[in-house]
């Protein structure tokens, strides 16, 4: 139940979600369109005994987030494209050293400074593969202020539970959108985000000895359980190891611990819009969309249904690990799939991978700093449907 409803911006809702989940630390570097998150963190965190640090750049911000988390504070940062690029280095450290943290990327148009700060969604593959090496990736994509709150809470829960970095990937449209948000009772959020803790004699503790779920319990710096975090290949104690068998096992475990839990995570939202009664039966069109584009796609679906074509929207709330089974089921139920996105076509590649040759998959790509409109999506759909 919502304790109260408030009118707020997506970025504010991200901050509220972080606080609700128990965040105690933020480090960041100012960048539009994410700065509201830092501004609010700078007053709200110290008011509850937490810490806001404004670092010299985004590399340092990620470093400080990792240090703070290792010292026991649920920690996060927020940035946009240029800053997210700089964070890739220490995102890899967080993944390898298994330090929980949340990174919010309020996307804007790129590359480089791009069209500052117009909308874009071209950081999808960067969020998956941006840091070098094989690594796990867990990415949520809100499409409303409410989802900014909900998915930030979700991000903290999984970051802490799985000892891994989690990326919240909003876009400027959602970040600056003002909407009603239902906020739960703060008491409900207590200890929502909690990491597995070691038990037993401190001398037996190993920083990287996994529990049954593949996640090693993590003690805080300062605890009697001595922690050796390591961004180099390491053994269960955290000591460096060049053993290929050890290295292979570790990389597999880092990815598997996330993959094993996807069934419990937020994944998608379904929308169904059918033509008026009596319309001749036709194969449905499926839209697969995410972030602010999902809202345009929903409007397009309504317009399409009015034209007599059954329309479905599968909104992806989790981008990585990609919701393969949900996409596959929805795509096979439809006659064809259209993937609108504010880039030259990134998620469409994943949809094609999942659907294969079984159904046609069409891209509806736009990468010029403007949001995709429902009319554009509809026009593209009618073009591929041949209506």
């Amino acid at each position, binding site marked *: 139940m919502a304790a109260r409803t408030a009118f707020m911006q997506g970025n504010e809702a991200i901050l509220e979600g972080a606080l609700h989940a128990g965040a105690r630390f933020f480090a960041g570097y100012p960048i539009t369109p994410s700065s509201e998150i830092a501004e609010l963190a700078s007053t709200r965190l110290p*008011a509850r005994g937490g810490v806001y640090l404004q*670092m010299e750049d985004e590399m340092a911000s990620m470093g*400080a987030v990792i*240090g703070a988390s290792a010292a026991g504070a649920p920690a996060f940062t927020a940035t946009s494209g240029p800053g997210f690029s700089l964070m890739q280095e220490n995102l890899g450290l967080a993944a390898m050293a298994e330090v929980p943290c949340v990174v919010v990327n309020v996307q804007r148009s790129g590359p480089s400074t791009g069209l500052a700060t117009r909308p874009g969604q071209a950081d999808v593959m960067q969020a998956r593969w941006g840091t070098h090496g094989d690594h796990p990736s867990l990415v949520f994509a809100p499409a409303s202020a409410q989802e900014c709150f909900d998915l930030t809470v979700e991000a903290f829960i999984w970051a802490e539970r799985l000892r891994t970095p989690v990326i919240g990937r909003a876009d400027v449209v959602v970040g600056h959108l003002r909407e009603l948000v239902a906020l739960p009772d703060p008491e409900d959020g207590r200890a929502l985000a909690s990491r597995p803790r070691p038990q037993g004699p401190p001398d037996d503790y190993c920083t990287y000895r996994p529990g049954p779920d593949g996640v090693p319990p993590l003690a805080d710096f300062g605890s009697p359980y001595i922690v050796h975090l390591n961004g180099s290949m390491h053994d269960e104690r955290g000591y460096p190891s060049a053993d290929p068998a050890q290295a292979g096992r570790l990389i597999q475990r880092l990815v598997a611990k996330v993959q094993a839990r996807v069934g419990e995570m937020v994944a998608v939202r379904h929308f169904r819009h059918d033509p008026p009664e009596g319309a001749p039966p036709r194969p449905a069109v499926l839209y697969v969309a995410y972030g602010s584009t999902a809202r345009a796609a929903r409007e397009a679906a309504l317009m399409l249904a009015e034209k007599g074509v059954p329309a479905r929207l599968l909104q992806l709330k989790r981008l990585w690990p990609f919701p393969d089974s949900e996409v596959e089921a929805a795509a096979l139920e439809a006659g064809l799939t259209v993937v609108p996105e504010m880039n030259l076509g990134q998620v469409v590649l994943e949809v094609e991978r999942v659907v294969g040759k079984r159904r046609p998959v069409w891209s509806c790509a736009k990468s010029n700093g403007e949001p995709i409109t429902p009319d554009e999506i509809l026009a593209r759909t009618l073009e591929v449907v041949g209506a």
Partner: protein
Amino acid sequence: MKARDYLIEEAMPLFWCRGCGNGIILHALLRALARLGKSREETVVVTGIGCFGKADDYIRTHSIHGTHGRALAIATGVKAVNPGLTVLALMGDGDCATIGGNHLIHAARRNIGVTAVVANNLNYGMTGGQFSATTPQGARSSTSSFGNPESGFDLCRLAGAAGAALVARATVYHAALLESLLVEAISCPGFSLVEVMSSCPVYYGRYNGIPDPAAMMRWWQESAVPASRYAELAPEEKQGRFPIGRLGGSDRPAFSERYARVQEAAQAGAGRWIQAGTDR
């Protein structure tokens, strides 16, 4: 606690080359921790990447082996969240002064209560002896065969100018001095930096005519001058020499002390802010 109690003995022998100064620095650091009676629980070692960035392999306190240049940023996050911890950032000159130079000046300006221990061997040993931001002008390296066209940083003056609470320098020849400077630095509530001139006979020495470890030690012995005496040297006598000992600092409150005031003001509600100071 004895120095040995902090050592991961099963990680022996040390990974570093014959004649390398890093083992001397490591031992001095462990003796300093023992002298201060620091427990393993309350101590956090943060390293970056490079030869001295491997120091955490041998230390039984809490540790994080991080990314190249970012040790001070990571250490800042640790200390900000738990000011009660003793936080040490162990780095080489490439790590601290070159790729991490921006984090160094900001850690000093912020006066975060971290002790930076910099093994300055005047080059990148790990990658084969390339010149770094502390390699002297004219010195040869694997990427400056014709002599280094750039000038090296004076790390102590850099950190001091940026606002560090304590700045000191020793060499690996002056191990007793090093230990006492480390004790002083670790006890300092603000940001402290101890630069240790360290031997790399395998690369820096070999490229610059001092390939013998003992000769490198003599070089440190002859070129290091206690700060009080260095100040009295004529300009021509200062050529090729450098001061050692405590070289500067300021008595500004440490970051955590000031941030505690911010937390108090934030908790008291709107209309409160912290007192402006008179320092830079």
